[in-house]
């Protein structure tokens, strides 16, 4: 079964944002939006919450404990070497290694967590609603499967009133997003 969408194309960020606001006022459900660059306000408007910072915090905690344990194991338990009379468990010299490896671990783990959560993998073919969203246009996608004709008309006129340069109809067989 194919799914039908209305796609509003905008030239400017301000018009795009005010259009999201008025669509939400009329209780249309926005399927997704695409912008050329990240906009904080859209994130708040669509009430999207990200748990990635929390995940990153715990990755960091995990990394610090693991790296310190690893350094303790290598330089105290497994192969203690006397460096200029310093104690085997010399915390100040561990810090730099810990910082660097923590940054590395958090980066890789966050990337993995983000990819897994948003089902991204190399070579994936995404459904692109409108190719211009990868260039300089702002795009609002609304699923129209459950809308009747009068609502559809209202939706189109609303987006045009807010300054959409184009409102397109598109149908997709499967959605990979």
């Amino acid at each position, binding site marked *: 079964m194919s799914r039908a969408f209305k796609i509003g194309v905008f030239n400017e960020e301000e018009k795009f944002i005010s259009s999201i606001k008025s669509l939400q006022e009329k209780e249309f459900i926005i399927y997704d939006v695409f912008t050329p660059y990240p906009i904080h306000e859209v994130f708040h408007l669509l009430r999207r919450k990200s748990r990635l*910072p929390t995940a990153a915090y715990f990755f960091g905690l995990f990394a610090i404990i693991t790296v310190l344990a690893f350094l303790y194991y290598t330089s105290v338990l497994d192969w203690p070497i006397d460096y200029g009379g310093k104690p085997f468990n010399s915390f100040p010299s561990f810090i730099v290694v810990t910082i660097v490896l923590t940054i590395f671990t958090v980066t890789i783990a966050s990337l993995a967590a983000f990819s897994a959560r948003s089902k991204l993998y190399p070579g994936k073919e995404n459904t692109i609603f409108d190719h211009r969203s990868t260039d300089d246009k702002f795009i609002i996608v609304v699923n129209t499967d459950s809308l009747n004709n009068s609502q559809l008309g209202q939706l189109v006129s609303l987006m045009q009133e807010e300054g959409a340069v184009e409102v397109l109809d598109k149908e997709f067989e499967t959605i990979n997003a």
Partner: protein
Amino acid sequence: MKEQLTVSTPFRIITLALILVGIFTFIAGLFSDPQRTWANYLIVNYYFLSLAMGGAFFFVLQSISQSGWSSAFKRVPEAMMAYIPFAAVFFLILYFGLHDLYHWSHSEAVAGDHVLEHKSAFLNIPFFMIRMIICFALWILFARILRRLSLHEDVADNDNVMVLFNKSELFSKIFIFIFAITFSFTTFDWIMSIDAHWYSTIFALKNMVAAFLHGVSVLTFIVFILYRKGYFPFLNKYHLHDFSRYVFILSIVWGYFWFAQFMIIWYGNIPEETIYYYVRWQEGWKVLFFLEIGLNWAIPFLVLLPVKSGRNMTVITVVILFLIIGQYIDLFVQVIPGTTGLLRFGWIEAGLILGYTGLFALVVVTALSKARLIPSGHPYLEESLNHRF
């Protein structure tokens, strides 16, 4: 919107009383324990100068980066810069205490001491005073230029505003180079040369970042106090976020430099370098040593890490109060072991802190009251008033 700050009479009386306490403590201290008094005089002098210089650094950085969000608050760093001439007078008075503070200022101590003889081309009293005068002259000059350009913006017409705006950016760019060089010299002179045999090349950078961190903290604190009094009604959570990110990131940079200096010396383990930390790891001092990194780095870092606490005025205020104490401990640990070596906090310390707090508050508030609190002519003012992201 209240736009003009007035100095109330009770405030004036309280600050003048505090200044009197400071003057009385200083004179009485000179009679009872001159060395301890001079050492504490240096600490508090440097403390408040570093706040003023931190404010100046914040100011020039904002105009170089053409930041919009902070432009409504720029009278506050300007007012902090107004303290620099006062600090200049106090540092010139330090001339009479040089022998109590600096080992290298005694010619009989230098004679026969190979290291100090080698350094005496740089570390001698006339050159020390000349450097001090040059640095202060440059700072006062640039503080005056930047302040005047900023005040002219308020009364200039539309075309002239941009000329003034670009001019103050140009002077900020010049000042930031001068600041880096002169502030390095002065921290080397005033603080590092107390331990004349010891040196650290990262010392100036560490103290510069400390000045920036604590200058921004106190600046934020002043903005909060004014907000509580009903000024800056437009202050929103995005402003708070930006202020707290400044404190947060600078405390990380401070911790980085602090650790870089410590780590190299600890790892290199050369006796003439480690003696600096050996003294500071004796009983009692060790507590302050760890308290310092806890207050200046660990607490700001951990507390301000979540976004929510960085947008909460109470949380930021508490962190800033810790940082205000932290900067004092930082300087105490740097100055006292090389001079009196006594870990003591008594009436001399407390009296001088009170006196200088009174003076700094009076100078800043008087400078704030001399101009409109919100600069009406700044091109980015509208952006700052409606700041959000």
